[in-house]
Every structure is written in structure tokens, then in C-alpha cells.
């Protein structure tokens, strides 16, 4: 459905996107994750035909991005929802329905259906007087007014309260289940984890890893083995009456077992733990920190939430 080849965007001396290639199948949910300034938004805007690539091509449903037919099949949701404050949801949506050549009766029906699903009342209130969450819902309704096959959503749930965030994530999941092709970006990895079929991780303008989540975990994540022993061994901590040592390789597990045996102890239990997407992401984004994974990962995520 979406074919991206050698996509590159330069602003003067600065390359915001440095040669991305990927494709998205029909009905797939594709997530682009990465830190701020990684080039996610630039990539999405090139998909939507808002920005002209310096090099490379983007095709959506076999059409070039400057094709009006392609634009008619695409729904774009920008990160912030700039609206015309003096309009009401109804007048705003009808205006865009007109621009997308949606017949009037179809537009009215679709508009109210979508707003019903989004649980939005106050359809005659000025947009300027609405809360952030309501504005975002109107923006989402606008992205669906032309019943597009492809949705390009830039951080659809950022900056909203948790309730609305969950609502919007659920709504997006529903859209995916209806068979829409969705490309979206996020830095809140929890959302990606819950709905994405495949992800690409971007850092400093380049895609540094891509694939289904399980595959990324295998390649860039690591398995942590928590070895519980009956006696204290070097590097272990006391936990619930036994001692726990966390290691990352089978060799280390073996060493631990030997060390316990030396001290007349036994291994009580070994538990394995897979990396979260967050850890994969941090490993990919910063290869040097691999190995010190789990201890700092928690701190980092704590930071980002703060």
C-alpha cells in the first residue's frame, strides 16, 4: 500500500531523514518510533505529500504524493491539531468534506456517525472554546471525513489526559481492525506495543531497526536470567529469603551455579525475562549502553514520564 524508497530530506546542511526505505502492506499497522528530532514527523509529512523529499520516492496505493487522487485516499492527523477557532465542528467538517469532494449527504451522515463513535457532543460550539481532547477528536473526525484507506497519524495521543489517550488508542485499534492501513508515530512505546504489527525505529534521521516486534526483541533485546540461590554469591541480592543474581548469558548462569555449589548452596530457581520494546528502543538508539540494560532502563522510563 505504501512504498518508500531511499527517502531523504535535507534542510540546508542538515539531513532530517537520511535515506529511509520501507513498505507497508494493506491493512497493516506500522509504527515509527524514536526520540524527538529523529525525523519521524518529517517522514510522515513526506508520506502525506506535505513536504517534498530531497531524494527518493513515496508511493501510496501506486500513486505519487502530489497526485490529488492519492490525497483523496489519505487521512492525515498532525501532531498538534491546528483548527479554525471561529468554526464549529459541523461547519469545519463540512468544509473539509467539500475540499475532499465528498457528496453533501454522504458527508453529513459520515460526520455524525464518526462524531457519535468519538463520543463528541457540543457540535455547534466554537472550536476555540473546546478542550484539547475534544479538539483532537474533531481533528480525527476530519481525518476520516473522506473515508480514506490510509491513515497517517503523527503522535495521535500525545499531550492528552490518560482517559482520552486510552480512548484514542482504542479507537485507532478499531480502525485497524476495520482494515485501514495505518502509519503512525509515537514516543510513548506502550501505545505502539499494543497495536503495531511492525515498527521502525528512527534515530538521528535514519531507520536503525525495523520489523515485527518479536524479531526486534530477538535482535536488539536481551534475555535476563534471574538466578535464585540458597546462599549468597558475589553480585547477588537478598530477596524473599533467597538470593537473586541477574545475569545476561548462559555462561554467567553456569558460573553462578558453580559459585553456589562452592559455598554449599544450590540453585533454587531460574527465571528468564524478555526486554520490553522500550529497552530494545534504547539499545538501538544507543548501542553503547547494551549490557547495562535493565538497571538503567527503569530510570530512563521514569525520567521520560516525569
Amino acid at each position, binding site marked *: 500500500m505504501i512504498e518508500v524508497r531511499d527517502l531523504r530530506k535535507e*534542510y*540546508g546542511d542538515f539531513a532530517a531523514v537520511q535515506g529511509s526505505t520501507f513498505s507497508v502492506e494493506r491493512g497493516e499497522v506500522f509504527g515509527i518510533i524514536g526520540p524527538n528530532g529523529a525525523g519521524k514527523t518529517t517522514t510522515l*509529512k513526506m508520506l*502525506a*505529500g*506535505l*513536504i*517534498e523529499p530531497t531524494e527518493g520516492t513515496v508511493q501510496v496505493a501506486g500513486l505519487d504524493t502530489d497526485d*490529488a*487522487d492519492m*490525497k*483523496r485516499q*489519505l487521512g*492525515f492527523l*498532525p501532531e*498538534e491539531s*491546528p*483548527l*479554525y477557532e*471561529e*468554526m464549529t465542528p459541523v*461547519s469545519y467538517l463540512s*468544509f*473539509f468534506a*467539500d*475540499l*475532499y*469532494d465528498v457528496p453533501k449527504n454522504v458527508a453529513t451522515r459520515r460526520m455524525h456517525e464518526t462524531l457519535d463513535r468519538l463520543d463528541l457532543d457540543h457540535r455547534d460550539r466554537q472550536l476555540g472554546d473546546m478542550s484539547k481532547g475534544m479538539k483532537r477528536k474533531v481533528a480525527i473526525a*476530519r481525518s476520516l471525513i473522506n473515508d480514506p484507506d490510509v491513515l497517517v497519524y503523527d503522535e495521535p495521543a500525545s499531550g492528552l489526559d490518560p482517559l482520552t489517550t486510552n480512548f484514542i488508542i482504542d479507537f485507532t485499534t478499531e480502525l485497524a481492525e476495520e482494515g485501514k492501513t495505518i502509519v503512525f508515530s509515537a514516543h510513548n512505546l506502550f501505545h505502539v506495543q499494543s497495536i503495531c504489527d511492525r515498527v521502525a525505529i528512527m534515530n538521528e534521521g535514519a531507520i536503525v531497526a525495523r520489523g515485527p516486534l518479536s524479531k526486534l526483541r530477538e535482535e536488539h533485546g536481551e534475555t535476563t536470567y534471574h538466578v535464585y540461590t540458597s546462599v549468597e554469591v558475589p553480585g547477588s541480592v537478598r530477596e524473599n529469603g533467597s538470593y537473586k543474581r541477574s545475569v545476561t548469558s548462559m555462561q554467567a548462569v553456569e558460573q553462578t551455579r558453580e559459585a553456589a555449589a562452592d559455598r554449599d548452596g544450590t540453585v533454587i530457581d531460574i527465571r528468564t525475562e524478555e526486554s520490553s520494546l522500550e529497552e530494545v528502543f534504547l539499545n538501538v538508539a544507543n548501542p553503547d549502553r547494551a549490557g547495562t540494560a535493565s538497571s538503567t532502563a527503569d530510570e530512563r522510563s521514569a525520567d521520560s514520564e516525569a
Partner: protein
Amino acid sequence: MELRKFLRIARWEVTKNAGGIDRRTAAITVGALVVLGVLAPLIASQGVALDSGIYRAGVDESSPYHEVLTDDATFAVHPASSDAVEEGRVDILIEGTEVVDWADSAKGRAALAELRSAVQRFNDQLMGQDPNQTAASPVSVTLRYVERSLATTQSAGDGGADSGGSDDGGTGGDGTGGTDGSSGSSDGSDTTDGTTGDTDGGGDDSGGGPLGGLGGLAGGLGDGGTSGAPSDIAPPFPFGSLVLAFVFVLPLNFVIQAYGSTILSERINRRGELMLVSPVSRGDIIVGKTLPYFLGAMFFEGLITVGLLTLGAEGATGWISLLAVTPLVLLFLGATFLGAMFARSFKELTFVTVTITVALTSFAFVPAIFTDVTPIALISPLTIVVRDLQGQAISLVEFGFSTLPAMLTAIVTFGLGAGLYREEDMFTQRPIPLKALDALSGRIKRRSSAAKLSILLLPFVFVTELIAVAMLFAVPQSFALPAILIVVAVVEELAKSIHLYAGFVHRKYVRTTRNAVIVGSLSGLGFFLAEKVSLVVQLLGGDIPDVEQAAFLTGGAGPAVSALVAIALLLAPLALHAVTATASAIGAARSRRGYVVGLTVAIGIHLAYNLTVVSFVVG
């Protein structure tokens, strides 16, 4: 571009703002206008004499000058006392018919000069009331403007016979002594029509200061007084035209306020982004957003035209005025559009709008003042309007000469602005000079774009040079000629190279000397071609005054030169433009400082060339 789409956007723009300009605003606007309407007659009855009481005169009632001074609002009259001037209580002291003392300052001398003209006016009025008109008005005059052709000698046989002005001394005319065809058209060698002259001895039309007495719109239409008493004849300074011109420009300044706002607000908080992803083209958006303001402005201009027609502009067609004012409306909107694409905030937009108001008003307004004086006035479309309202005929060539440069400039400003109407440029906050470079570099696709941009910028060059000509019109020719040549060199070199610099800065052109030579030559070629086209237009245009000829002579051959020289003169500009543009380009390829050096060299070469050609052809 799709008709349905941009009409939809235009409708949205109107309805959105109809909600925006609420009833309260409309009510206050109407109220203010009503108050103005009520005040106008009151103020008019009081008279807007800006200069009332700025001079103080000491004079006793016994002096015959006392009556003169009390009649003249410019003077505040004080009792005479011998030391009044020394003590600074008055500027001028009169005893009897003798000015005995005046302040030794600019003010004192100005007061004396004002007194002299006041006495002259008083005398004229006095004589006008005298029963013996032969003794009171011993001299009558008929003024004729006769064209002297530039190169050939015209037989002067005709002309003298008609309109002798024989019935001397005022038949009580209504003051509309309209000159007809005082310039321009080929047959217009004789320009007076009949005699009018004021019964009250005239003189009253020369006072009042630059803004005094806005009344007499219709009477002011043909103010280039052509016959009557000696004091009735006046250099062609159509005060009425001036007022008219102003009336036409005034509403545009309000329209561009609102227009600039709506364009800039699309750029604030990325509002315009969503329309850019929808299946409408940039052109649709821009045309749609502009159309309501264009139609609104044209509606105002139409109202004004209808108003002036009903006020009694005899012989005016009206539609020619409306047609001539169209490019001006577009120019105001185009410049505002570009300005709104440049501005980073409303504050900057206010400055930009003020600049546009001042610059374009002077472009449209100042030349129109000279409507009856010189064909240079034709550079402003308003001149056509004024002429039409005076009931003069306008040839197609004159119309084209007047409106095309403004029209083309308007199109170019819209084009450059449209180049910025995209995600990458619209929402970034860059200083205005950098934005200007962005606008130019947005139009660069390949190396041949250098030629295209030079052609595109030619209307700007043309209009700027014409404005310079108009501005230097009033100064002595010995100073004006070199000044014009310098302006021409600077403006043309800038237009040929600024987009090359933008191209190098934005890496559209690779920074090599070879590249610089190529784009420089292309730019020169483009400029040369465009200049030739405009030259043809000018030759069609016919009589161009001396100063203006000097400005454009450098682009082509003058009359009465041999064929070989003519060819050399035709091709020399090509070499010149290519060489100078290359010089700037080589500098621009290096650095900013390099560009300044290159440009200076180019201007130097251009100036030297111009001086050579002008001294060769003229001298």
C-alpha cells in the same frame, strides 16, 4: 486550478469572517462612518486651515495692510509696538504701508514672503470688484501647451489661430476650464478650450495651503488654469486629481489590513497545514483566500467610480477607470500576500503593511499628481483614472504602458509568495531577508532558472526605475541624469544577481566558478531578452521624456545612428548583462562578502557602460 474548489475556499473565507467580523464590529464601523459623515460638513464649514496663525504680525488698524492681514488666516494680528519684533512677540511689524521690521530668521522672511503674496491676492480681489474692468484687469492671458516633437521639426503653421481669448475679463465661468489631451496622443498640439476666468478676479484658488479647501471636486478636475487674469494661470497642478487619486487608494489600505491578517493567521499555529494535505492545489487556496478581498476592493472602487460619475465627472467612461485600477488593487494584495508570507508575527505584519501602504501609495499617488504635466505620470495606473475622470481619451498603448508593469509586478509578487506557501517555508520563523532568499530559491529548479528569474524580476526593475524617474522629475536635469543612471545600474544588477546568490546559499547551484559563469550568463541573457520586449513596448509608446529616455537608452539604440552602430548598440547590452551578472555570480559563489564585492564591481561596470552610451548617443 479548479473553479469549484477555489470558490468553495472563497466562500469559506467570507463566512468564516462573517462570523469573525461580528455584528458589534460592524455596528461600531457604521457608527464611526456616520459620525464622520455628520462631522464632515461641520469641519468643512470651519475650514481645515493647517497653517492658520503660524505667523504673527504687528499692525495697527490704521494701516491699509490691516485688512489684508485679518483676511488671511495664516497671520495672527497683534497691535503694533516698536519693540515687538525684538521681544519676539511678533515676526513682522508694519507701519502704514511700510514693513518696518521683521525677525531676522527663516520665519521672519517666510512671513514677509507670505505677506507679499497676501497683498497680491488682496489686490486681485479688490480689482475684481472694480466697476471699470478695463482699468482693473488691463491684461488677460490665454495659456497654450504646445508639443515640441523630439527629433523632427513640425511645421508650426496651425495652432495660433483658434481660441484667441478675445472676450476678456470673465464671463462668469464655472471654473471647469478642462484642458484636453495636454500630452500623449500624437495629434494633441493645441490644448486650450475657450475662455473662462472668474468673475471675482480669481486668486482665491491659489491660497489655502497644500490641504486647504477640499471642496470643489468637480471644479478641481481641470485645475491647470489656462486663461484669465495673469494670476489665474497656474502650472498644471491638478489639485482635484490629487484628491481623486487619494480617494481611490484609501480603501485599499483597509482591505490589505484584513487580507494580511487572514494570510498570516493561516501560518500561525500551523493552521494552514491541513488544507495543504487535502486534494486542493496551492493555487486554489491562494486564489480562494484572495478572491473575497479582491472583489471587496473592486466593489469599493466601483462605488467610488459611480460616486464620482454622479458628482459630475463629465465625459468619463468609468469602466476605463475601473479597469485601470484593477492592477493597482492586485498589486496591493500581491505585495501584502508576499509580506504576510515573510512576517513572523502580527507586529511584523503591521510594519510590513505600513511599508506597503507608504510605498505603493507613493507609487500610485505621486505620479498621478503630474497627470497634466508629463507623460511620466503614466507610470501610475491612477493617472489613467484621473485622465478618464477628466474626460480625456486614452489610447490603448498608454493604457498598456500604465497598467502592465503594475499587473506584472502583482503577478510576480503572488508567484514568489506562492513559492513560500508550502509546509517547509510557511511555518518556519526566519528573519525577513532570509525569507526573501527562500522565496527566490523556491523558484530555482535547474540552472536555466537563472534566466527565468531575471525575466520574472524585470517588472520590479521597471517599476522601480520608473518611480526613480518620477521622484527625480522635480530636480534639475544636471543632477537627475547621473542619479538615474546610478539607480538603473544598482537596480538592474541587484535584480540579475540576488536570485543567483539565493541559489548558491540554498545549494541549488554548486559553488564553482564554472557554475557561476554559466548561471551568470543565463541570468544576463534572460534579462536582456525581457528588456528587449519591454523596449519594443516603449517604442510603441512613443513620446518618452528626456530623463526617462536616459534611463532606458542604455537598453537600446537611439535615433539617428548608423546601422552598424545600431547593431552594436543592440548587442552590446547582451554582453554587458552577461558580464556583470557573471561578476556578481562569481562573488556570490564564494561567500556573502564575495557577493557584495562582485555586485559592486558589476554596478561599476554597468555605470561606466551607461555613461559611455549616454554620452555617445546624447552628446
